[in-house]
């Protein structure tokens, strides 16, 4: 099937494609919920300490960010053999995520599989984004499909979570892991099969000719600002996820409350996918989310927390939808690959930031939750001032603010990259010099020993 994506497709095939993509998200959602959701508990119950778990998890975030940066720079690498790359990455991700229960005895292998699995799921997510951006002709279609996909994913994770909670009650630990992971793998394969059936999937993606200088930079400014909002929101959201269970343990909540929390969260994102319909609504949802996050540590009744979880995750969808819509709108000017990198890697960067924060600060849960609220507040402020669609200040001001935010974050990025590159280079040079001197000394010692000098 060698159809360039620019050719218009018949409406019927487009509808079929949409249906299949939503089905893919449904099957994929189940597989993701089980394989990811079980990972850390499985390690913890198999005798891994908290420290070794963080060592297993840490390389994954770094690998994801590195891959995103690489693809952002050289987007031709993924557009040329798009179809083959998407399908193989989709399949490989599922195979990789089958292995954790079988490698549980070796920490290094577990970390490697986890990192690789995450890198491939990032790549898959990114390519799915590119596919959706290039498959559907209008921005409205893209948003509609994305909303349906995220709703289907949330519904499937709900099922996955139920399945994952039920099965351990009837089976013994080592077997139950194998059964759960194999089930997840089988259902993951179903999602790969649905993806295979999508009609006229482009075998390569033609990036539209780049817009010229000024327009391009405008798009970049907007993209970076939206990215910043998403990263801040995600960092806050992940921090909430990390701190909530310890808080509940402190409140002496019964065991079913944390479980109900994640179920309510899934339900909330399912509802949230359909609740917010305009830029104003997205902003309102984000503001409400911030407020709710700040309230969590002050609610002393454990039974209310699942309700808050429902509300926070449904309002959190506002941020996701804002990102989806902005990047769908920008994908033409920014390039589909770049837009997709932006919208996919924000979650990873947010995860990395929140993990780094919680490792570095070791704050008690209520402080961590307030910090999360502060991060989200920052995101809301940036959205209110620097993104034209959601801004509450006059347009002229928005332009100035957005430039300011853009140049500040770009400066920070450049500085970080430059500094770390310099540091790495000096390190490598030192290492090489030390190795050289060691080699000379070694040969000298050999000679001294043999020749008896």
């Amino acid at each position: 099937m060698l159809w360039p994506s620019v050719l218009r497709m018949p409406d019927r095939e487009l509808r079929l494609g949409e249906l299949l993509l939503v089905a893919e998200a449904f099957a994929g959602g189940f597989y993701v919920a089980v394989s990811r959701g079980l990972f850390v508990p499985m390690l913890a119950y198999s005798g891994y300490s908290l420290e070794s778990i963080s060592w297993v998890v840490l390389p994954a975030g770094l690998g994801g960010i590195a891959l995103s940066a690489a693809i952002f720079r050289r987007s031709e690498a993924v557009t040329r053999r798009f179809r083959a790359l998407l399908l193989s990455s989709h399949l490989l991700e599922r195979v990789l995520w089958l292995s954790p229960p079988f490698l549980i005895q070796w920490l290094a292998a577990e970390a490697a599989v986890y990192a690789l699995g995450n890198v491939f799921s990032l790549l898959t997510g990114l390519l799915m984004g590119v596919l959706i951006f290039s498959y559907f002709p209008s921005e409205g279609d893209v948003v509609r499909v994305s909303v349906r996909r995220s709703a289907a994913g949330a519904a499937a994770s709900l099922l996955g979570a139920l399945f994952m909670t039920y099965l351990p009650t009837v089976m013994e630990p080592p077997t139950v892991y194998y059964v759960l992971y194999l089930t997840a793998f089988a259902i993951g394969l179903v999602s790969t099969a649905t993806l295979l059936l999508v009609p006229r999937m482009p075998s390569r993606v033609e990036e539209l000719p780049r817009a010229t200088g000024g327009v391009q930079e405008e798009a970049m400014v907007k993209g970076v600002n939206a990215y910043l909002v998403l990263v801040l929101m995600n960092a806050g959201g992940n921090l909430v996820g990390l701190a909530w269970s310890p808080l509940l343990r402190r409140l002496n909540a019964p065991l079913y409350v944390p479980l109900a929390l994640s179920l309510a969260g899934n339900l909330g994102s399912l509802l949230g996918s359909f609740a917010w319909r305009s830029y104003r609504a997205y902003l309102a949802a984000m503001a409400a989310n911030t407020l709710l996050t700040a309230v969590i540590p002050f609610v002393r009744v454990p039974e209310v927390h699942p309700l808050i979880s429902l509300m926070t995750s449904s309002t959190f969808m506002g941020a996701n939808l804002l990102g989806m819509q902005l990047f769908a709108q920008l994908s033409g000017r920014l390039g589909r690959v770049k837009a997709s990198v932006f919208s996919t890697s924000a979650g990873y960067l947010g995860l990395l930031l929140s993990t780094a924060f919680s490792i570095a600060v070791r704050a008690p849960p209520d402080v961590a939750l307030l910090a999360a609220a502060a991060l989200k507040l920052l995101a809301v402020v940036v959205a209110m001032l620097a993104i034209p669609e959601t801004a509450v200040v006059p347009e002229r001001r928005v332009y100035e603010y957005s430039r300011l935010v853009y140049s500040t974050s770009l400066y920070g990025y450049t500085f970080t990259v430059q500094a770390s590159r310099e540091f790495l280079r000096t390190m490598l040079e030192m290492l090489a010099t030390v190795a050289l001197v060691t080699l000379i000394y070694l040969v000298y010692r050999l000679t001294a020993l043999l020749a008896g000098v």
Partner: protein
Amino acid sequence: MPELSALELLQALLQDLAAVIPKLAVGVAALFLAFLLIRLVHRVVKVLVDASGLEERLRSVIPGGTRLPVALVISLALDAMILVSAASLVVRLFVPEYTAAYREYLGVLARAGSVAVLSLVAIIVVDALAKSMGLEEKTERFFTMLTSLFIVTLAVDLAALSPEVKQALVIGLAVGIGLLIGAFALWAFFGDYIERVIEGRAGGGR
């Protein structure tokens, strides 16, 4: 001397040969291994020097860099060491240990290695000096001469001459080098002055 038949003679010869063969094999293997090691070391040194950025750093000290690439110099020095090791291993195989001959052979080997390494150092240092002084081509040739004299002096140490002759040669070379350096210093530091004086005389005569 008892009469030996040709056959017995041949037999004795063959026995000797048979006794030597294992040693020979080990010796050849050692040399082969040394050459293999040299190739490997060359490659590793090249990679490490490239990675460490030694060349660029030297270039900032010595304008134009050293005449011989750093990687080559280091590799050659290491080659000398490895060859000396392999040769001493071979000597160990054939000459019984703790005899005078054994010690002498090892001494010669060690000296040969030292001469090779010191020659390299001499080339590098003199070259670096000439480069950093920013001299013209003619003066650089002087430095080349100086270097070769140094190397000859070092090589005399290896020759199997009688100690008296050796000493005489080395002293002669050393005096020669000293005079050369003196003459050069005189020209380098007082050249302008001398030139002026000579010119003044010539001008006075006119």
